[in-house]
């Protein structure tokens, strides 16, 4: 059973529907006791880093997420939810993340060729940089996934498993032990995205 962490950020409808579509039991909750029953946890997120990180803290779920990650529960951050797994973000200031992964989040503005549009929005192909990662075991080099973001993670070489080329190689997916992250939206990435969610569910069941 997959638990989607609801901390008041973004719309969780598509994420929940996508797990249902692949036949996975899934629930959305902001309650630690409920979420603790899940085999695997999804940390979603859209919007601004500071606002999302504050909401996670205010709900007390930041400590819960860290404890679960330490216990070995499979955890996957999606989009801004992935960015929050890192140490800090430089999105309009400097903000602390959960520090579950080494690295930080920086703006594309100023670090990409000027002719490129920001946000990076649309379908882009994945370049798999680590073949021994379970999360992408059902994905092929060059498979396309859907991105929408203006900030990206860097300094995360030790967890990097896939990149996408957009003026430079942007961090697309990360994994370290039981902690996973996708910058793209698997719930909007057609059959490729559903395969990633399905693999995460399998990993979660195996870990249980």
């Amino acid at each position, binding site marked *: 059973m997959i638990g989607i962490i609801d901390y008041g950020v973004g719309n969780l409808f598509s994420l929940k529907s996508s797990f249902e579509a692949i036949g996975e039991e899934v629930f959305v909750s902001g309650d630690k006791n409920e979420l603790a029953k899940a085999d695997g946890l999804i940390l979603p997120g859209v919007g601004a880093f500071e606002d999302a990180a504050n909401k996670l803290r205010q709900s007390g779920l930041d400590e819960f997420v860290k404890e679960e990650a330490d216990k070995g529960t499979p955890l996957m951050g999606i989009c801004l939810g992935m960015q929050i797994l890192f140490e800090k973000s430089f999105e309009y200031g400097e903000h602390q993340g959960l520090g579950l992964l080494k690295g930080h989040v920086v703006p594309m503005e100023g670090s990409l060729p000027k002719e490129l549009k920001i946000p990076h929005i649309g379908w882009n192909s994945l370049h798999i940089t680590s073949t021994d990662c379970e999360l992408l075991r059902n994905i092929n080099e060059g498979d396309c996934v859907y991105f929408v973001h203006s900030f990206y993670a860097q300094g995360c070489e030790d967890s990097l498993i896939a990149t996408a080329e957009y003026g430079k190689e942007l961090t697309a997916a990360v994994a370290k032990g039981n902690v996973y992250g996708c910058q793209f939206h698997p719930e909007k990435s*057609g059959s490729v995205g559903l395969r990633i969610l399905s693999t995460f569910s399998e990993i979660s069941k195996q870990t249980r």
Partner: protein
Amino acid sequence: MITKRIIPCLDVRNGRVVKGVNFEGLSDVSSPIELGKYYSDNGADELVFYDITASAEGRALFTDILTEVAKTIFIPLTVGGGINTLDDFDRVLKCGADKVSVNSGAIRDPELITKAAKKYGDQCVVISADVKRVDGVFRVFAKGGRENTGMEAISWIKSCVDRGAGEVVLNSIDTDGVKGGFDLEMLRAVSDVVNVPVIASGGAGCIDDFVTLFNTLPKVDAGLAASIFHFGEVEIPELKKVLQKNNINVRL
């Protein structure tokens, strides 16, 4: 490499797709749910659902259908039609839409773009503009292309992007329905002044029109069409194969 997007647009009235379609294997060709799934399974990169209902009953039905579509299709969904307030944004986003397209609503109240972009993010707000040449000047038309607002189109679109619209759908009334190709001149004029994705709409009649579009205007990000897809005149998998042969990056 980021890919060029191919986007079918479905006009929905009272819960049904208008303009009959003819696809083998679809039991109900006027069902937005079945047709949406068909496109999603057959290479569409994104879907646009346009609500052309006038009644409140039709609007509620549209919302229900959107929820069903979003439960079965896992590609980005853009919704337009009848978007006049932030509550309208809220209503369709809750049903699983990813982006909301505004047209007449933004003409009446440009602040709608500013407010929506602030609340939901730029990436969520699409400005859809119906544009036609009048005495050699690009003018914005409202109410489904029936009413000349008198506004100069290029500066209007730029002002919408400055307010926070994250994407532009440019529909040329001059080429719409003519099937003689996209309005390259108009698209170039818009692409030159905005730095957000531009989606070309109006005029596609065959596969070559898409090849010409992306080859001539590399800054255009996507091609949108309705009837040529609905009537099977252009099939998206075939279209994408031809684009790829022409060194245009697509998702296969």
